[in-house]
């Protein structure tokens, strides 16, 4: 039972891998290949590339990543609770309300601290 379901998933994964391999391999047979120095330069609005390509990017991306990690992981607790919601009764409801209020406070915190504001940093 289990195995069969995941067999389908496995087949899909295999197909997903195969398609790019096949397509790119076919492409290699078909497409021309005449590399020149200029073709291999990095594109930069038609100018000579300045400096390194892997520049330092803004710190705010990390902050969003942190926010994502926290909220996404909290949903790990929300999902099982939601599935079993009908069987759990009042206790679970109250408990999850507290949980969500805490999440909300966290969001409020981030909001007030201007973490959510793109231009703030």
């Amino acid at each position, binding site marked *: 039972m289990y195995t*069969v379901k995941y067999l*389908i998933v496995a087949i*899909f994964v295999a197909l997903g891998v195969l*398609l790019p391999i096949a*397509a790119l391999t076919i*492409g*290699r047979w078909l497409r021309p290949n005449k590399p020149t120095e200029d073709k291999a330069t990095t594109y930069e609005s038609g100018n000579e590339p300045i400096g390194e390509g892997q520049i330092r990017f803004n710190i705010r991306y990390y902050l969003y990543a942190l926010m994502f990690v926290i909220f*996404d992981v909290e949903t790990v607790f929300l999902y099982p609770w939601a599935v079993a*919601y*009908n069987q759990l009764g009042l206790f679970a409801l109250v408990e999850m309300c507290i949980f969500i209020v805490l999440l909300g406070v966290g969001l409020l915190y981030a909001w007030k601290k201007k973490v959510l504001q793109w231009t703030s940093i």
Partner: protein
Amino acid sequence: MLDLVGQPLTWTHTLIFAAYGVLLLLIILGFVTYAIYFERKVIGWMQGRYGPNRTGPFGLLQTVADVFKLLIKEDTIPRKADRPLFILAPVITFIPSFVVVATIPFTANLIHADLNVGLLYYVALSGISTIGMILGGWASNNKYALLGGMRSAAQMISYEVPLVISVIGVIMMTGTLNLHKIVEAQGDNFWNWNFLPQIVGFIVFMIAGVSELNRTPFDLPEAESELVAGYHVEYSGFRFAFFMLAEYVYVFAIASLTTVLFLGGWHAPFALLAFIPGIVWFLLKFSIIVFFFFWIRATMPRIRIDQLMGLGWKVLLPLALLNIFITAIYMGITA
């Protein structure tokens, strides 16, 4: 056909499944090809233009020609790029987009991986694509690509949170993560579908879904006018095609998922119409959603990135959290 899944594993079954997979893959490829055509036509129509009309009748072969053009185009990899990652990135983006489709129930008994954690499976796998985009941006060793990659990652993870939380209401109502059962729990009349009691969740889900697809008005990662083309600026040929492919496969997937979660899947809108096969209803709803995607692309302007982030965190997430409360209360009243 779904009965096969319940039976012990044999080589025959495996072959059937494989055939089904290949078939679905082909369907999806076809869908993508004509979705692009359709999109261009729709937008053209809405904007008073013609859209593609040269290649083939009504321009029907335009996208096919585009695909062939990409296939035979020379593939250049920048000298400074991180080669293995550069090659790997589009593949990583594409694979999950296809694999998530495995769990979507198109009709009551059309074959699919009937996972108990189907929804979780979808959410978990779709997150992997983000990694591909960041990798692509980073491996290109190009400033625009990197910024585009970071932006797309920031956007996708920001909208992933409300997306994931907005479906909790549905889970609460149906008590399962199994997509098949979620559809079954919705009845044969449209007022039994989830989108009505879950209207807040539905709206949040739709908006977040559009954003997840990086489509206008949320297409900042590939904003041609600002970032040249975003994370795939250095890609050409079929590697580029795979980024595009992934994007449109996600359109397929999200549209299917919306249908399944909120619009009753294969159910008919009225019980008396139930004699029409489920697949028809499914396709109908599915098409409406796809059309909706194209429609807003034609009408809405692109928003600024700070507005984009603000919308996600300050509007959608609180709404999604609120939705959980609303659902809990709603269920308390109806129960």
